[in-house]
């Protein structure tokens, strides 16, 4: 839910509640006050009758007044107290307020009922009700307009910062700049964001420089170890077990050296050292690469299905070659003998599928560095990280899927 929506919801609900409560309270207060007023009028009427009786010892003649009736009745049993009540008269739609009392005139008890119509009070209460409803409706509209314009404008810097933040990529080397807002809270937020993103960039760069330096510095010792081992290998009197040890050491060294090269490659792509782009006839490149791998595929009796349509891309050629190398190596390495490889290329993208281990790979971890689910000693877990890095650098998307017992890697153009 959006901030404004949430705010609106709370705001409107509470306003409506307050208005309804106030309306109800006002209604009852008004009703009560108006009744009191009416009762006082009735009592004035009673006083007038009492005064008349006291003066003339007879009942006054009923005067016809609009919305008012006075009824006299001989009473065998007089009312002990005067009594106010609201009654309905069948002949009339309106409610009436009635005061009943007894009075002695000419030695006789009379029960007197004075009635006054409540029509006026009803009109007032209805008006109040209507006004309340109208105010609530107006409030709705006003809140809506206020939120639309003023609140939106007030929060504008916040959304602007959010937008800037959304485009932040730690690899892009672009330091975030937030505009000054004139509101303390937003300024504080922006300065905090500026500081923390700058720190993230700095940390990222430090890590990158470290990886780069470490890989660079490793190359010379690796070269020395390899050369020394090759010198030892030339020894005349080496035993078979010594050769076996040398072989193991040499394979471990190869793995290390390959890993080092992969890490270097990753930092190079991150450093945008492959920025120059040209028009690459991807289909031709793919066919060439497939020819290079053919020997390897034949050797493992892999059936390769090629479905290649002419596609040209504007990319870095070296990176695409690396991408194809990695994709092909992957599909070959994680296959079984007599397995299959499917390669299809069209305007939408490039798909490479292979048979292999019958468990789908984790989509979330797959492209992470050093992720190696099969714990295969021949893979260093950097191949897919390189594939993704190349795709990111080339503006392509890579997706993994597992269908029909096939591992599918799709590069979307």
């Amino acid at each position, binding site marked *: 839910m959006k901030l404004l929506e949430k705010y609106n919801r709370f705001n409107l609900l509470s306003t409506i509640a307050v208005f309804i409560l106030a309306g109800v309270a006002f209604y009852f207060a008004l009703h009560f006050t108006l009744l009191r007023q009416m009762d006082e009028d009735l009592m004035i009427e009673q006083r007038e009758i009492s005064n008349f009786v006291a003066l003339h010892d007879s009942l006054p003649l009923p005067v016809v007044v609009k919305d008012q009736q006075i009824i006299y009745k001989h009473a065998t049993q007089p009312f002990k107290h005067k009594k106010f009540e609201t009654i309905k008269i069948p002949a009339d739609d309106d409610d009436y307020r009635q005061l009943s009392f007894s009075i002695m005139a000419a030695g006789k008890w009379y029960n007197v009922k004075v009635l006054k119509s409540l029509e006026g009070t009803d009109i007032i209460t209805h008006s109040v009700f209507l006004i309340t409803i109208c105010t609530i409706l107006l409030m709705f509209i006003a809140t809506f307009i206020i939120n639309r314009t003023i609140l939106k404008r007030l929060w504008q810097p916040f959304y602007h910062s959010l937008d800037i933040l959304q485009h932040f990529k730690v690899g892009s080397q672009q330091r975030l700049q937030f505009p000054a807002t004139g509101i303390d809270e937003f300024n504080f937020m922006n300065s905090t964001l500026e500081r923390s993103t700058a720190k993230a960039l700095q940390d990222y760069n430090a890590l990158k420089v470290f990886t780069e330096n470490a890989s660079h510095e490793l190359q010379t010792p690796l*070269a020395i170890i390899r050369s020394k081992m*090759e010198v030892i*290998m030339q020894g005349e009197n080496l035993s*078979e077990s010594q050769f076996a040890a040398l072989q193991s050491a040499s394979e471990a060294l190869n793995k290390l050296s390959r890993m080092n090269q992969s890490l270097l490659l990753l930092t190079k792509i991150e450093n945008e050292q492959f920025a120059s782009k040209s028009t690459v006839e991807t289909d031709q490149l793919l066919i060439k690469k497939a020819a290079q791998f053919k020997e390897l595929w034949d050797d493992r009796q892999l059936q390769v299905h090629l479905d290649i349509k002419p596609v040209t891309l504007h990319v870095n050629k070296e990176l695409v070659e690396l991408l194809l190398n990695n994709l092909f190596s992957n599909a070959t390495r994680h296959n079984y003998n007599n397995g299959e490889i499917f390669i299809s290329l069209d305007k939408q993208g490039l798909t490479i599928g292979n048979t292999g281990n019958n468990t789908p790979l984790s989509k979330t971890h797959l492209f992470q560095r050093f992720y190696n689910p099969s714990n295969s000693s021949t893979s260093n877990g950097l191949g897919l990280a390189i594939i993704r890095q190349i795709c990111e650098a080339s503006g392509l998307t890579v997706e993994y899927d597992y269908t029909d017992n096939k591992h599918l890697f799709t590069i979307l153009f």
Partner: protein
Amino acid sequence: MKVLIIEDEQELSDSICQYLADENFLCEVAGTFDAAIEKICLYDYTCIILDINLPGGSGLDILKELKRNNKTDGVLIVSAKNSLNDKVYGLKAGADDYLSKPFYLPELSARVAAIIRRKTFDGNNIVSFDELQLNLQEKTATVKGKVIDLTRKEYDLLLYFISNKNKVISKNAIAEHLWGDDMDLAGNYDFIYSHIKNVRKKLIQSGCQDYIKSVYGMGYKLSYQIAPE
């Protein structure tokens, strides 16, 4: 034939010297930029193995110095900076070849041998080993005048072996030489085995000795036995 190794890591230059010395190369070593400049000004070398990162300067400046003095020494750049730019720039500046660290000594040896062949045997494109002759121009192999039908890879393999005769070459080094390092063939040596098997079969069929020996599963060695059975 004199080879100058310009490399600041003494351990590495020692290994290179030791490996190349058996190939009848006379190796000299320069460990710093200044020592290298001094040596190239004083002497002529058939081939110079040049590191880019040197204490006191860049190997590329040494290359420029060589060209300014119209020296014709062959130059093989060996650099830890495995970047295309370095490679392109180095080759543009007049280097003959480029090899990135960490490299295999047989690979280095083969590259040096190729540079030397280009520099010294003008017009002579024949490399021979015992009865086996390789024509570099036509990329063919002959034994006693008879052409052996080799595939391109098999020919490359034979030339690689001859450039490293009497040396044990590891399977990794062979794989990287034939397929390059970007194919990532780690651990998969079966197809190297089948290639070598084919070459040996073809050599024997054409009537020469089985020069290629397997060395305890570690690698292979091309050698000539003085007293064949």
